[in-house]
């Protein structure tokens, strides 16, 4: 199974991805989480620290451009394999090109066992071709979009749906669903359900806002590790279960911006 999480920057993709990876690993799956973000923070909660040896940093620093799997694949919580693509400092270079090169390098090194469940955690919006690579080149087949009920989060989600729709004709990537990550906005769950329906998909989970997520993050842990018996941990386990059992993978039907605004105003009061 090859999954990718997309969504607006700061919406909680990495937190959700790390917790879902942790939940999968506890179900007995071999899991590999690949952070596709130059910030390198996708796997922080699994490794207990920011990943220092990213794919691109390692390639850059090696004299002949050659790297080994051991240099770039790190073991995190419960045996989860953690990889960070890495990339340039803010404001320089091209992070999108970095994603392309990093994924090609991973492919060439054949570092991901066939029987692994792979989860790609991709930076923010699909801002350029590089960030569409996990969808476009068949690295991921099941795409999940993390979104709150806020306008710009839904706007980004709708744009990502456009990206999936664009590449649906040439590959296997399909939309698996919307993962609601609550920001406690008015009628948030209802809005997200209708939003998902309008995109021809489901709201696969609605993750309530809980202080325990912040507490776990402060300890550099997933909720699953930090508070395994908590309700929030159960939410993530259920989400992992639903993703694993999901049968509905669709070609999304994105909305126009005007339609999106209209939908949001419908649930505003």
């Amino acid at each position, binding site marked *: 199974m090859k999954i990718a999480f997309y969504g607006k920057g700061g919406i909680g993709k990495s937190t959700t991805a790390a917790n879902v990876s942790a939940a999968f690993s506890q179900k007995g799956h071999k899991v590999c989480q690949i952070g596709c973000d130059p910030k390198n923070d996708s796997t922080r909660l699994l490794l207990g620290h920011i990943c220092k040896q990213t794919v*691109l940093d390692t390639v*850059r620093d090696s004299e002949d451009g050659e790297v080994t799997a051991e240099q770039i694949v790190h073991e995190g919580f419960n045996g989860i394999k953690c990889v960070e693509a890495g990339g340039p*400092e803010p404001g*320089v270079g*091209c992070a999108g090109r970095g994603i392309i090169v990093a994924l090609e390098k991973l492919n060439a090194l054949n570092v991901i066992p066939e029987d692994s469940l792979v989860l790609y955690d991709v930076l923010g919006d699909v801002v350029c071709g590089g960030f569409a690579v996990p969808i476009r080149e068949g690295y991921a087949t099941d795409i999940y979009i993390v979104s709150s009920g806020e306008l710009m989060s839904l706007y980004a989600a709708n744009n990502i749906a456009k990206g999936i729709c664009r590449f649906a004709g040439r590959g296997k990537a399909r939309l698996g669903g919307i993962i609601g990550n609550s920001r406690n906005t008015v009628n948030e769950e209802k809005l997200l359900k209708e939003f998902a329906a309008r995109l021809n998909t489901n709201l696969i989970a609605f993750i309530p806002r809980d202080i325990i997520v912040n507490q776990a993050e402060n300890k550099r842990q997933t909720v699953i590790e930090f508070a395994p018996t908590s309700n929030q941990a159960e939410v993530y386990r259920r989400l992992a279960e639903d993703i694993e059992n999901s049968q509905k993978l669709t070609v999304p039907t994105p909305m126009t911006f005007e339609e999106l605004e209209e939908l949001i105003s419908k649930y505003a009061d």
Partner: protein
Amino acid sequence: MPIKTKRFIIKKRSCSCSMPGVWRAVGYSKGAVVVFHSPKACAHVAHTMDINAHFRGIARGEREPYGYTAPLISTMLTEKHSIFGGAKQLENCLDFVVKRYKPQYIVIANSCVVGVIGDDVAAVAAGAEEKHNLPIITLPCYGFLDGEYYAGYYGVAEALVERFLVGGLPKVQDSVILLGDNGGPNGEYAVEVKRLLAYFDLQVIGQFPGYVAYDDMNQVTTAALSVVLGGRTQANDSLLKIAKKLEEKFAIPYYGGVYPLGWQGTREWLADLGRKLHKEESAQKAIAEQKERLERVLVDAKEKLRGKKVAVCIGRQLEYFRPEWVMEILKLIEINQLGIVLLDSYMPKDRASMEQAIKSCTNINIFNQLEGAKVVEAADIILTTHELEAYNARQLFLPMLPTVGVTGMIKLIKNIIKIAYRHGDKGGIVYG
């Protein structure tokens, strides 16, 4: 037998890289070093251009052209720079260039990669300029993204005017600065123009931008006149802008007449220049002497080419090849013209433009490539813009740059005679 050419390039529009233009603009300016902020391979175009120019010069019997060729250094961007940015690489490269070549100024040309990843080249250049106390010129041009060689050429020329040229110096009477390239100071073009300018007692003091040494930049503004070595293409537009800038900033009037091209063109060029300089008598004297010189050659050519049949094959866009000067020469030598064949390299619109241009200067029949096969077979001599495969055809390859002035006409006429009198049944090609 159908006409087969060796090479065809069908172009919908002009597209080129600005980087060779940057290099060419200071390529022989003593004191300059050009840095290509690019992958290594980008440098090969300019490198090849330099080598080709060198061997063309030798083939034409020009003396070794210039004492200085600006080193061309590539920052050698690789994949990792496209990801992490190439600013540091550029900084290191500039340090290396300063240490190794001790230039008086540096010009940086940006590649497509730099345009896409958005390296802050201006900031790096400003930092290096301060560090090394050395002028470093940058341009907002990014390889093929700009789509034009002349964007680079003009950009550098403009930057040199802004950075290095100072006003207030006394003018040197009857001095001329040539603007543009066209093969450099020892190329046929510049040599012929200098010869014609001598009729007006004008002395060329330099050729800007590519051939003026850093230490001589101030001399440019002492010129009493600038003469554009242009044509009808984009080059001329760019050079005219530079000429106007020199006029505005340094009160240097310019003469931007299109090429002394063909007899008609040469006569007009001389007459116009005479009017501009209020030296109409000098112009008339020059015209008379050039006419006499040409007529002497024409008498001989008419005699030698009597009974010979010629076909003309044209496949270049009008932008790169004007047919008028060729038609004029054929008319002057009174050779039997079988027809003009337009090769299959045209887009419909370009073909129509070329047809119109041909019809405006001759009433010789025009054929397409298929129809033209018989015309070519029947011809003793073929003047062509594209080499034909036929091994037994006697071909004169028409140059991209027209031959200039009466000197150029005479050279072309002599080449026509040369190919017409090739021994026995031998074919072959002479490059015009």
